[in-house]
């Protein structure tokens, strides 16, 4: 009796499985899979969701695993496209025999968030913030910080620096900027996805953007670097940074767009803004890229990908600011649109 029930259940389960897979196969769908950078992941997932809704029959899956993992997946051909904050270097590009088309899709800023009771606005000069991250400037009432913030009473408190513990594009962009403006930083810490931060008692590392922002929030006297969108969402105060022209600029849409405007997009679409020009530019901004093959076996897939890029350029840019990213300048949108024709 018992056996009978078991057999029946098993049979119905198997039958259901067949039916289900049959149904899935019947719908003629194009599935695009991508993986990579976590920095633009929130806006990408929104874009892809809206894109799939607008284009029945195309489904886009994006896994935010980090830029490095995305590039690896891309080289191993386990995905249709990838995304990376550090673009792709020449050595990596040569490993893809179909050719690689890099397309900047959005841009972001990295902000210095801090936790100081009663200090709503903080100016950090170019000579100071590399010093803080080098562990050279240890107190909030350091004369160099006080001089840049007239009228603000800064406490006699230790500065606790919060850095990223995991390897990340955010660290890459931030340390690249610090290396560009401070030779000392370049020589002792250097830039990369895991910069060699000094081992100090007042430097702690936390995983991911959420970990860093939570640690800043819970630690009086802390300062750390996170993405603008994240700081905006979690409402942590952000410091104004001194740019190349000596002006203190707050992070946000205006400063970010000014920073992007100063850079020309080259043929290979790989452009860095380690220290953007312009009086109104916020100093730490960066593009972030999607990576495509130049040749796809399935032409339908290539067409779907081109459609996806077009959607991100036309509709996607509209929501960028609200999501905490910088919309691409019109010139860049056109350049990307032209380059996207290379995806075949």
């Amino acid at each position, binding site marked *: 009796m018992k056996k009978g029930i078991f057999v029946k259940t098993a049979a119905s389960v198997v039958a259901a499985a067949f039916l289900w897979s049959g149904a899935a196969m019947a719908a003629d769908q194009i599935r695009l899979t991508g993986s990579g950078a976590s920095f633009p992941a929130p806006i990408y997932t929104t874009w892809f969701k809206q894109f799939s809704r607008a284009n029945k029959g195309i489904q886009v899956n994006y896994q935010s695993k980090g830029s490095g993992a995305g590039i690896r997946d891309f080289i191993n051909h386990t995905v249709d496209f990838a995304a990376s904050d550090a673009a792709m270097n020449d050595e990596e590009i040569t490993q893809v025999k179909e050719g690689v088309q890099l397309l900047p899709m959005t841009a972001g800023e990295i902000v210095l968030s801090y936790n100081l009771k009663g200090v709503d606005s903080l100016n950090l000069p170019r000579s100071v913030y590399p010093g803080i991250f080098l562990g050279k400037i240890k107190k909030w009432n350091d004369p160099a910080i006080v001089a840049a913030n007239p009228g603000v009473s800064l406490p006699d408190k*230790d500065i606790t620096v919060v850095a990223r513990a995991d390897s990340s594009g955010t660290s890459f962009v931030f340390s690249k900027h610090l290396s560009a403006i401070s030779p000392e930083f370049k020589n002792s810490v250097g830039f990369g996805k895991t910069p060699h931060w000094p081992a100090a008692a007042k430097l702690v590392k936390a995983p991911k953007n959420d970990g860093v922002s939570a640690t800043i929030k819970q630690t009086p006297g802390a300062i750390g670097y996170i993405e603008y969108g994240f700081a905006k969402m979690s409402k942590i105060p952000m410091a104004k940074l001194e740019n190349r022209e000596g002006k203190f600029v707050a992070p946000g849409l205006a400063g970010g767009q000014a920073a992007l405007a100063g850079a020309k997009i080259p043929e290979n679409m790989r452009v860095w803004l380690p220290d953007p020009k312009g009086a109104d530019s916020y100093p730490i901004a960066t593009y972030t890229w999607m990576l495509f093959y130049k040749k796809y076996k399935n032409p339908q897939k290539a067409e779907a990908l081109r459609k996806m890029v077009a959607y991100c350029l036309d509709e996607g840019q509209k929501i960028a600011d609200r999501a905490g990213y910088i919309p691409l300048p019109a010139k860049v949108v056109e350049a990307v649109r032209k380059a996207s024709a290379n995806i075949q």
Partner: protein
Amino acid sequence: MAKDHQSVWEGDDTLSRPATPGDRLFDKLFQGLTFTFTLATILLLTYILYEIIGKALPAISNIGFSFLYSTTWDVNAQQFGILPEIWGTLYSSLLALLLGGFFGVTIAIFLTQDFLPHRIQVLLKNIIELLAAIPSVVYGLWGIYVLIPLIRPPADYLHGHFGWIPFFSTSLSGPGMFPAALVLAIMILPTVAAISQDALLAIPHKTKEAAYGMGTTRWEAILRVFLPTASGGIFGALVLGFGRALGETMALAMLIGNSNKISLSVFSPADTLAALLALNFPEASDYEISVLMYAAVTLLLITLLVNVAGAIIISKTGSGINR
């Protein structure tokens, strides 16, 4: 009751019958199945070891033993050393074992030596075991949002007044060894408490009666007779707890500060092997993966050594249950 009992022996109502061919087949199949699963587990472990060591080989041959005693971890310069992480792993686990072990064994005594009505004992036992069901990441968040603000004032006081003691020589900036060890202690508490309880419950009734018969007070009996008798099991509990603490990842990655630093101070940030692995894998390049595998092999070896040491201690002291 008696009638039921008789019916087994009378007439053809008997429950016992010779095994049918179906039963025998089932028996054989079941035996085969269990054997296969056992074998599969061992094979799986071997395969995992093979994978890890195989992937670690390039790094092992390249860095050699200096990996274990050098202190730099600089991906850009391709210099790797894990002494701070080995130190952090052992130090945090040891602190957790001291705290969690003490409380775990105390709880076990409290819950097994008839201090409470039986029902409340069962209730408390289950509640403590529930601690094991809380996800690691929740412990981490709880540590950041609740525990760290809570321990900040006492930590500042200790650093301010007893800063000359090496254990308190730095001020607590937030994440660090102390909050990490506290959370770790809570995480190993259920393991230690549950196994210690079993060990204490397994003390033969005769031993208990003999102890009280000799005229001991309750505390004399517990400290002089029951604890030594159950010591084997309690040691086992501590070893398991220590093993769990060594491998714990997410909560530590969130709380320990992940700083490449060796310090006796419990308020200083530190790093552990498991946290290092978890945080660096996703973006690692090929060679870095090999280096991380080498670190994983080291962690495996440490855990193995701890377990072997534990097994030796248990066999030397002898399990209270067997005596």
